[in-house]
């Protein structure tokens, strides 16, 4: 798509592009080089700074912390998808007494920062006598936030379906629940699968917020390591950060793969025009809300 912005470069453009390429490389090298240089002269590459990583029980600790991160992520993912379905169904309900409270709850959960939700559960609830594990504070806060975002995703998916689908469902004698379960949701989930997986990447990233409320996950362990011999804070940030980035890249890769897969599927192709307006970039569900009115306009 971007290639339509410019012609096939002629000799002068080629020369200019070469200069720009060299400038880009130089700027990037200068920035990276400066950091590496500072790291070298402050002794960040010395053996004693990396010494802790030669111990096997440090690695056992890292794997344990990784397990804590993954278990919070897994439960939060399952719960938020479940909550997403519940809230989406509630918001699409024909009864105002269901629809209005559910809409309010969805909007509320989306407006409050996840960290404040976590803090409310972890530091706030003990005041009223409910003591909560940091694990549950992380999981429940992630569930509330991502569940409400996923509810919006699913609702957008259902609303992007052609009206005929629902009407045909009623015409063959299905009830409302049957139309939802057998006709609308399967198609909506299919069209929205890339966005749903992308939202799971957000969930994975947000488990790192558990660090702030002292849930002993990966980043917390990185901080713990930095009090070890040699104070290897940058080093543990690099090792732990690498683990985070690899996990998120894998999940993003899955999202991308699903997106390519669905795009080529003939069953979804018909919906693609509408779904694309909702998905926008396909990776950032925050954009989704903004795109909704645009989609309506298109119709």
């Amino acid at each position: 798509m971007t290639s339509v912005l410019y012609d096939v470069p002629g000799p002068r453009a080629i020369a200019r592009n070469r200069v720009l390429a060299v400038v880009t490389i130089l700027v990037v090298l200068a920035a990276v080089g400066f950091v590496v240089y500072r790291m070298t002269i402050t002794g960040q590459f010395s053996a004693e700074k990396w010494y802790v990583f030669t111990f096997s029980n440090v690695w056992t600790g890292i794997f344990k912390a990784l397990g804590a991160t993954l278990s919070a992520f897994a439960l939060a993912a399952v719960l938020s998808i479940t909550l997403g379905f519940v809230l989406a169904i509630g918001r699409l309900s024909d009864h105002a007494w269901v629809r209005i409270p559910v809409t309010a709850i969805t909007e509320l959960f989306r407006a409050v920062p996840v960290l404040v939700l976590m803090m409310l559960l972890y530091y706030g609830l003990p005041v009223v006598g409910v003591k909560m594990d940091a694990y549950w504070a992380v999981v429940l806060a992630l569930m509330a936030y991502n569940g409400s975002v996923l509810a919006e995703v699913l609702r957008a998916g259902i609303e992007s379906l052609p009206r005929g689908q629902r009407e045909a469902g009623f015409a063959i004698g299905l009830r409302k629940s049957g139309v939802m379960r057998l006709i609308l949701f399967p198609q909506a989930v299919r069209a929205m699968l890339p966005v749903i997986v992308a939202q799971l990447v957000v969930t994975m990233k947000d488990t790192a917020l558990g660090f702030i409320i002292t849930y002993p996950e990966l980043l917390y362990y990185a901080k713990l390591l930095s009090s070890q011999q040699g104070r290897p804070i940058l080093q543990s940030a690099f090792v732990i950060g690498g683990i985070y980035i690899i996990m998120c890249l894998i999940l993003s890769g899955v999202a991308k793969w699903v997106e390519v897969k669905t795009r080529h599927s003939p069953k979804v192709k018909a919906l693609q025009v509408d779904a694309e307006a909702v998905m926008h970039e396909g990776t950032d569900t925050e954009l989704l809300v903004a795109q909704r009115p645009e989609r309506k306009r298109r119709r």
Partner: protein
Amino acid sequence: MDVIFGNLDLWAEALSNTLLVFFAGGVIALVLGIIVGAMRVSPVPIARGVGTVYVNLVRNTPLTLVFFFFVFGYPQLGLPDLSNTMLGILAIGIYTATYVAEVLRAGINTVPVGQAEAARAIGLPFGQVMTLVILPQAFRSVVPPMMSVFIALLKNTTVAAGFAVSELAALRATVNDAADRPGNPMEVLLWVALVFVVLVLLMSWAQNRLENRWRIAR
């Protein structure tokens, strides 16, 4: 109500710090995001590559980790001292810049191909194709998602609370640790949540207004 009026000084400081992180981080995000967004659509393959790597790398890094690098990692490099607030602003700016860049790129892609082709057909070079034809049209479709990015940025400022920046989400600890301050954690956090809900609703309202005003009739 005591929790508000007994700690008015703390609330003022916290709110101003939150807004400082928000606005300063927003400026960095915009400037850097525009540069990276331009790199991602530029005719120079290397620049495109650098932009793509930056966006993919930072987008797949938890914000807390970016903060971790800046707040705990930066002092290790023996560079001039910066306050935690400053480092937090840098971290959040660099993180949000990737989202700004993606919104811009997506906005450019919403401009119909014919527009760029027509501009090129009348002989405009890349720079003028962008500034005279594509960007003015892209701008309109960029505004609503850009507001969403800034809403997310506002909510993300709370992460700074975990890194000793005294902003809204850090208020709980400040009030709790001081013996003579009224209010318990629950009250403080509920008020903080309310402040965020109000701010976010305000921004979504602005988003809707801007959207209606700049709607493109196509």
